[in-house]
């Protein structure tokens, strides 16, 4: 489907162009990826639940990424960047597990 195609295209673009990430943003890239992953899995679960909406998907994706990055940035300013990163990862991780569990229930009826 289009979503899968979109993922493939995105990955290919990233591998082909291999853009250089400026060193200042390097720290936030992993956080952004995890936050994005959380939004994507949330969207997938909503789709399987039958309540998917693209506007909500876009908003959740962008807000997740920016809010996560903003929290880590604030933490860096305060000097607790590492700890806040850990906290954000913890929360995002729990949500990811939750959504994946729901997805699993849908897919395997287990």
């Amino acid at each position, binding site marked *: *489907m*289009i*979503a899968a*195609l*979109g*993922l*493939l*295209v*995105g*990955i*290919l*673009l*990233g*591998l082909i162009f*291999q*853009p250089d*990430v400026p060193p200042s943003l*390097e720290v936030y*890239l*992993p956080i*952004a*990826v995890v936050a*994005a*992953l959380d939004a*994507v899995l*949330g*969207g997938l*679960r*909503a789709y399987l*639940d*039958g*309540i*998917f*909406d*693209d*506007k*909500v*998907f*876009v*908003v*959740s*994706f962008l807000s997740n990424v920016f809010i996560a990055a903003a929290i880590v940035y604030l933490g860096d300013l305060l000097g607790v960047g590492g700890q806040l990163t850990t906290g954000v990862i913890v*929360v995002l991780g*729990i*949500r*990811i597990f*939750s*959504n994946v569990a*729901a997805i699993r229930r849908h897919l395997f009826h287990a």
Partner: protein
Amino acid sequence: MADKPDRRLPEHVTTPLLSLITHQALEEDYRSVAERRAREGAAPEPRRSRVVAGAVIAVFGILISVAAVQNSRNEEVSDAGRATLIERIGESRSGLEDRQARIADLTRENLELSDSLTELATVRQEAVSQMRRLQLGAGYLPATGEGVRVLVNDNPTGDPIQRVTDADLAKLVDGLWEAGAEAIAINDQRLNPLGSIRNVGSAIHVNTFPLTPPYIVRAIGDTRTLQANLLNTTHGARFFSLADQLGFEYSVDRVSELELPAARQRPLSEVVTGTAEQRGDRGVEEDSS
């Protein structure tokens, strides 16, 4: 009793944190939008949602791959850096081990050298000691000690027959040796195995050096017995009897400290140590040097 307000606190206040996170894993927006659409009766899913979703997921894809590529690059760099560092550490370590081994070697070598140096120094001291003893005895080292001083001068009348001759001094010296003298000098000439007392014309030469009267014969020896012994020797007695006969001026004194100079050593040209047999009878032509 006041009435308790019958208000239910919102869920996000009462539930524990982890439960809250788990429950809110799925955005509430999905639910509320779906409920609203159901109420409004619109289609559950708009057409365009697929495309938009696809685009967003593409962005997600880009993010993932960029992050992966970045990470692998960093790893390469840091790995390369690490590898280089570890290699340099290895080189540094082995270089250090080499140096430490060399330090151990040198320390041991220096210890051996130091020990042998101490031995060598002792050997040298003994050799020098022996050399000086020999030099002293033979007359090639200045000597000091108690002894007697015999002053002899020609008869003041100036008669040639009444001058002191080499034979006269030779008698006196022979008497002194026989009496136990250990070192003798006439004026400034130390007697030694290669030197003689000889008249050349009317001048007495000792060690080939001409002397002028008065002749001061200094002899180092036991002051208690030297004089007495001298008079008891044949040559000593003869000398004094001759001196009286010919009218020499003379005096004999005991001195507590005499200082006799050294004689000059002449290199030996004919004699060599050992016997002809030992040297292998190397023939008549052999020239000793």
